[in-house]
């Protein structure tokens, strides 16, 4: 600012104080001598703006590829090839079927309403407005409909619409419909597994192969062999379905486990779904109750409590436990459903399903020992199999003596039924606990991943208890002649609004075939079965779950290679006999169990 500039302005601003008028003059004055610099500054600004825009154009150039993008987009969207899924005998459970899908390039469609109307007519679409919305999207590629018929393809072709095209596509097909649906799971429209083994397959890296751009052909993929037996699954589902109707239950489920390998031979949970058309998918109604639901197992849990007491040498098979009176603890009283009011041996506790007797055994072990044993048996943590659908057990916090007392007979702890099966399988198979698997494996592989939990003689004792219970106890319904079955019932009152409801029960039944050289463990659970005339109004496990299990054993055992035998095995429980309990090898316990 040049001081000379002040001069001419002064005269006009006489009213202002000198300082302010000087400022005013300086503020209003303009200068020529630095305008060339300022023009250059403007030019530099423009240069910057032009450079930014040129950079943006280059960026758009490198990002581009919308027109060729149909192929790129289609590659992204196209169904990924999946391996076949077969059962343990190689029978097909799931495969890819080649189909044609119709897509649109919204940018190339001028009259979107007309095209929407035509396609709605040909494809009998239920929601034309959804298609209209897709056609209006700012995308180079949208699906119109996946998997269309050849006739529809021809009709759409005849429209001659340039923005509509066809692509070979794959659709997952399950030839057995809902059989083993909960094991298989299902895929979405893009052939990505979103439930069951299908999801497991994707998690094993199949999709990352696709993502990395590897062209994976269906033919090149090795079939995934499951441990499932299709025929046995059919039998299990059939009997569960009949049982569901007969006992007017809300739901039922069951599984068959090979106790030698931990393989799941069959698993069904009703209501289920057809994986070919899963609709809303898995909901609270049709979920897999064997792995994704947790329930109180009731008396079935007593096997675990007794095994623990035997393993810790707190009782022997012949030990007597006081069931003369109800067990009082604090303000709580433990009753027996089938009250005997006398001293009971361990087999009698099991056969009479004595809550008092079992509780006394657990009290001898104590809370820390009880918790440690349950942890060892995998009852306190979520069991993770190949199926992504799993639920964590519900365990009490804090865990008092009273909790241990009720958990002794299966109340106050909720576990997944398959988890309880795994525990019992581990007890009866010689003491090797193994996480169940849905993939085929042999005994050697299974033993490598198993964990020893009880001694062989304890294992034999549990098998004996289950056997005697099938002979003279609550599991008679499943005592199918010729198979030397062992079994245990469990009935838990359901908790409604925080209280045990007397009329609503959850029943469980486990059966071991054969009890001397165990091969298969059967389990059936029923949710709210009703008492019937034929069951004399009873709704306890023996009457419903037990009956279904018996029918499943009758039909499935021959398929599993078990031949019925006319004579009972001679010395089924040698270890117990060597300990001096010779009566165990006699029919009906030789009258020693009453």
């Amino acid at each position: 600012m040049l001081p000379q500039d002040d001069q001419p302005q002064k005269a006009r601003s006489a009213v202002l104080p000198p300082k302010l008028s000087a400022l005013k003059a300086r503020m209003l004055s303009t200068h020529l001598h630095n305008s060339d610099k300022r023009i250059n500054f403007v030019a530099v600004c423009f240069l910057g703006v032009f450079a930014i825009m040129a950079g943006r154009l280059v960026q758009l150039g490198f990002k581009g590829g919308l027109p060729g993008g149909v192929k790129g987009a289609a590659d992204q969207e196209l169904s990924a090839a999946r391996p076949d899924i077969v059962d343990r005998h190689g029978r097909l459970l799931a495969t890819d079927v080649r189909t044609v899908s119709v897509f649109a390039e919204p940018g190339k469609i001028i009259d979107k309403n007309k095209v929407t109307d035509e396609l709605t007519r040909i494809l009998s679409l239920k929601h034309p407005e959804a298609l209209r919305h897709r056609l209006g999207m700012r995308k180079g590629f949208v699906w119109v409909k996946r998997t269309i018929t050849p006739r529809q393809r021809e009709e759409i072709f005849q429209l001659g619409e340039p923005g509509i095209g066809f692509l070979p596509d794959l659709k997952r097909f399950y030839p057995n419909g809902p059989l083993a649906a909960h094991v298989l799971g299902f895929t979405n429209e893009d052939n990505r597994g979103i439930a069951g083994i299908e999801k497991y397959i994707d998690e094993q890296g199949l999709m990352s192969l696709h993502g990395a751009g590897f062209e994976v052909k269906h033919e090149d993929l090795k079939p995934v062999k499951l441990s499932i037996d299709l025929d046995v699954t059919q039998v299990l589902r059939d009997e569960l379905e009949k049982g569901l109707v007969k006992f007017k239950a809300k739901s039922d489920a069951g599984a068959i486990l090979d106790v030698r390998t931990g393989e799941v031979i069959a698993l069904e949970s009703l209501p289920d779904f057809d994986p070919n058309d899963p609709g809303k998918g898995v909901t609270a109604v049709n979920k897999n109750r064997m792995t994704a639901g947790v329930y109180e197992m009731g008396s079935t849990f007593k096997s675990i409590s007794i095994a623990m007491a035997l393993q810790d040498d707190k009782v022997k098979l012949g030990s007597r436990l006081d069931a003369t009176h109800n067990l009082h603890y604090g303000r709580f009283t433990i009753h027996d459903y089938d009250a005997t009011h006398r001293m009971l041996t361990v087999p009698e506790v099991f056969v009479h399903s004595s809550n008092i007797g079992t509780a006394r055994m657990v009290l001898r072990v104590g809370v820390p020992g009880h918790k440690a044993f349950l942890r060892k048996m995998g009852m306190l943590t979520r069991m993770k199999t190949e199926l992504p659908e799993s639920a964590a057990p519900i365990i009490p916090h804090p865990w008092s003596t009273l909790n241990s007392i009720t958990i002794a007979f299966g109340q106050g702890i909720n576990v997944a039924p398959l988890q309880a099966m795994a525990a019992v399988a581990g007890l009866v198979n010689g003491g090797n606990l193994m996480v169940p698997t849905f993939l085929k494996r042999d005994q050697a592989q299974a033993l490598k991943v198993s964990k020893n939990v009880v001694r062989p003689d304890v294992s034999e004792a549990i098998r004996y208890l289950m056997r005697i219970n099938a002979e003279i106890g609550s599991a008679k319904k499943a005592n199918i002649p010729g198979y030397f079955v062992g079994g245990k019932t469990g009935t838990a009152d359901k908790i409604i609004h925080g209280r045990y409801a007397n009329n609503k029960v959850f029943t469980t039944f486990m059966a071991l075939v054969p009890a001397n050289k165990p091969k298969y463990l059967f389990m059936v659970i029923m949710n709210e079965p009703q008492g019937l005339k034929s069951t004399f109004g009873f709704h306890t496990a023996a009457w419903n779950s037990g009956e279904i299990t018996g029918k499943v054993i009758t039909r499935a055992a021959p398929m599993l290679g078990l031949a019925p035998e006319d004579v009972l095995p001679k010395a089924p429980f040698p270890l117990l006999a060597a300990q001096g309990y010779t009566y165990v090898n006699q029919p009906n316990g030789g009258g020693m169990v009453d």
Partner: protein
Amino acid sequence: MISRAERSQLARWWWTVDQWQIGAFLVLMALGLILSMAGSPPVAERIGLPPFHFVHRQAMYLVPAIIIMLGVSTLDPRQVRRASLVTYAGAMLAILLALKFGHEIKGARRWIFGIQPSEFLKPAFVVLAAWAFSEGAKQKKMPGTTIAILLLPLTVIPLLLQPDFGQTMLISLVWAALFLVAGVHILWIVGIGGLGAIGVLLAYKLSPHVHQRIISFLDPQAAHLGTNAFQVETALDSFYSGGWLGRGPGGGVIKRILPDSHTDFIFAVTGEEFGILFCIALMALFAFVVLRGLRRASRDEDPFCRFAATGLLVQFGLQSCINMAVNLDLMPAKGMTLPFISYGGSSLMALALGAGFLIAVTRKRPRSEVLLETEVPAGLPA
């Protein structure tokens, strides 16, 4: 041929004008015609006209446009000022008439007698403002700067009433650039910047139209269904579709759904049919005109010519930059044409007028003539 030896009127014109600049403008006009063949047929078809309706109209407008540009370029600075004054008065009258009697198109009263007078107002305003600033700088007795300051609201208020925020913003920015170049105190620039920010804020708060445009730019997802977001996304698709080399003339597909493909979004159509490299070249042509012009203006000794050339170039440059930036999704959508390329009679004539003024004020003149006009008072440095 035009010889240097011959002192004819034509020869004198030819050897004093900036031939590169005239050449650049003519190339832009030719490109405008070619690109209108790409951008306008879909629009014509959409409103039921023959496909080449707009191409023919554009070609017809080119003849008077070139005549205006070359004719105006022969004026001397004094005549330029007079022409601007007349144009300004005429345009302002037309704007006021349009406000009173004009038809409302897309929510604004901008048109009367088939022309958009605000287009003609721009170059006239720039020349008048440059005149006022240069007088303020030269003769301290003349209240040039005050006039220049008052000129802005006088011009902008009728535009705001239309409403036409795009033109208002452009005119305000050009005026601010002139103010800056005129060498005002730095405090003014800070103050004006603040006022500008307040103005944008007020427009954002008070005008739902501006509000929606800014929102849709800042958050395209939220305003996904808005037409502006649709325009801009479609414009981007055009560039993607074209890639580096384009789909070839007539090969564009996105242009069929791109609104205003012959006016505001002609640059995107250019991208789709002629490619991104061509777009860069076209942008380089605009940059050439603006940067070369500014460099020459900074060396001009006549303050009026210097300011007028700067103002006209800033107007031209800003208008092209805003249009291209909107096409490239670097700015919220503005109703701004790409100079000489976009279709539009009024726009083309007004740009030709501005280009004519620019060529006229940047003509080489004898130094004595300049000094005579500048009239620096004795004792004060120029």
